[in-house]
C-alpha cells in the first residue's frame, strides 16, 4: 500500500512537468490559418509563469531549464536560448510570488503580459547576438500577441490540473 501511495504521489508531482513537455510538442503543429503566417504562442512561458506562482515545488528552476532545452530542440531555436529565458522568467516570477498570489485574474494577466514582452525582447536580442545579424522584431511581436491571447485558456487548463493533482494530502 505504501509503495502504491508513493507511486501515486510521484505521478501527481510529475504531471505538470510532463504536461508542459507535451504542450510544447503540440504547439509545433502546423495551423494553416488562412490569411497570415501565425506564430504559435509560447506555451512554455505561460506554464512557467503559472506554476512558479501557484506550485513552485512542482516546477522548480531545473524543470524550467529542461523545458527550455526541450523547446529549443523541437522548435529549431539556438540551443540554450529558451532555457535561459525560462530560467530568468522563473526566477523573477518566483521572487514576485508573494505580491502576485491571490490577486485577481486581470492583474495576473497584466503581469503576464509584461513578462511576455520582456521575454520576447530577450529572445530578439539573444537571437541577434547568436546569429550576429540584424533581425526585424515583427515575428516576436506577433508571438507576444498570440501568447497573451492563449494565456486564459492555458491557465484554465493548468488550474484544472492543479486541482486534480492535489489528491489526498
Amino acid at each position: 500500500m505504501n509503495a502504491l501511495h508513493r507511486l501515486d504521489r510521484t505521478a501527481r508531482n510529475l504531471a505538470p512537468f510532463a504536461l508542459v513537455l507535451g504542450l510544447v510538442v503540440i504547439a509545433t503543429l502546423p495551423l494553416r490559418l488562412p490569411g497570415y503566417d501565425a506564430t504559435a504562442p509560447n506555451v512554455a512561458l505561460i506554464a512557467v509563469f503559472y506554476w512558479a506562482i501557484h506550485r513552485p515545488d512542482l516546477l522548480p528552476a531545473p524543470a524550467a531549464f529542461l523545458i527550455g532545452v526541450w523547446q529549443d530542440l523541437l522548435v529549431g531555436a539556438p540551443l540554450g536560448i529558451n532555457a535561459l529565458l525560462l530560467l530568468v522568467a522563473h526566477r523573477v516570477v518566483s521572487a514576485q510570488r508573494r505580491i502576485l498570489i491571490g490577486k485577481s485574474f486581470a492583474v495576473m494577466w497584466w503581469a503576464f503580459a509584461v513578462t511576455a514582452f520582456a521575454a520576447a525582447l530577450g529572445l530578439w536580442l539573444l537571437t541577434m547576438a547568436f546569429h550576429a545579424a540584424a533581425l526585424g522584431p515583427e515575428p516576436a511581436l506577433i508571438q507576444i500577441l498570440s501568447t497573451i491571447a492563449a494565456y486564459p485558456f492555458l491557465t484554465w487548463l493548468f488550474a484544472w490540473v492543479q486541482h486534480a493533482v492535489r489528491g489526498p494530502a
Partner: protein
Amino acid sequence: MRPLAGSATRLVAPVRGLAQRFAFPFLILAAFGLMLFGKAETVMVERLRADAVDIVSPILAGLSRPLATVADMAEAGGRLVDLHAENRRLRAQNRRLLRWQQAARSLAAENESLRRLLDYAPGPEARSVAARVIAKSGGVFARTVLVDAGERHGVAKGQTVVADRGLVGRIVSAGSLSARALLVTDLNSRIPVLVERSRARAILAGDNRPRPRLEFADPAGGVAAGDRILTSGHGDLFPVGVPIGVVVAEDGAGLRVRPFVRLHRIEHVRILERRAPGPPPAP
C-alpha cells in the same frame, strides 16, 4: 557516542543548502554553455535535435492529419462564399492550360525526334520521396518545417525540397523518421538563382520575411517586377531550373521575390534525391 546516522545527516544538510543556493547560477551558466556549444558543434547539436524530433514525430504525424482536414474544411467554407467568381476564374485558367498542353505536346514530340536524331541517352531520372509537413518551426526567428520522412526513407542532408508550385527549400538535418527543411525565407537560406527572361545571375537571400531578397553582383543585369526566378544550379546545391517565385518591387527595400509556394500552408512536398556526380558518359 553519537549514532552514525546523526553525523551523516549533519553532513548532508549544509551540502543541500549549498546546492540550492548555487542551482540557479549553475543553470544560468549551463544555458550559456549550451549556446556556446551550439555555436561551436553545430553537427552534434543537429544530431541531438534530429533525435529529439524523431521521438515526437509519430505523434506529430498522427495529430497533423486531423488538423489539416479541419484547415481544408475551413478553406472550403471560405470558398463557398464566392463560388461564381471562382468558377469564372477557373474556366479562364482551364482555357489557358489547354493551350499550354497543346504547346507542350508538340514540344515533346519535337524533343523526342531531336533526341533520336542525336542518339542522346539521358541519365537516370532523379528519384524523389513524397512527404508531409508535420510541424512548422514554432521558433520565432527560424523558418523551418519538419517532414515525416527520414534517413529510413532515403532522405539526407542537402537534398532539395519542392512542392507542386516550386521550390520549398532544402534538408538541413535528417533523423531516421523525420527531417528538418530550411525554407527559402529563412535567415540562413542562400540560393543561387537566375532570372528566366534575361538569364542574369543573383543570390536569393532569406531574412525571415515572407519575401526573400534578391542580391545581384551586377546590379545593372536585366530584372524587372514580374520576372520569374529559377534556380541556377550553381554550386551544385540545387538542380537547375526549379521555379522559385516572381519578382516584386518594394519601395526602398530593393527587389524581393514572392515565392510561388504558399510557405505557410504547405502540406505535401517532394524531396529530391541527388544523383551522385559520376564520370561523364563516354562519347
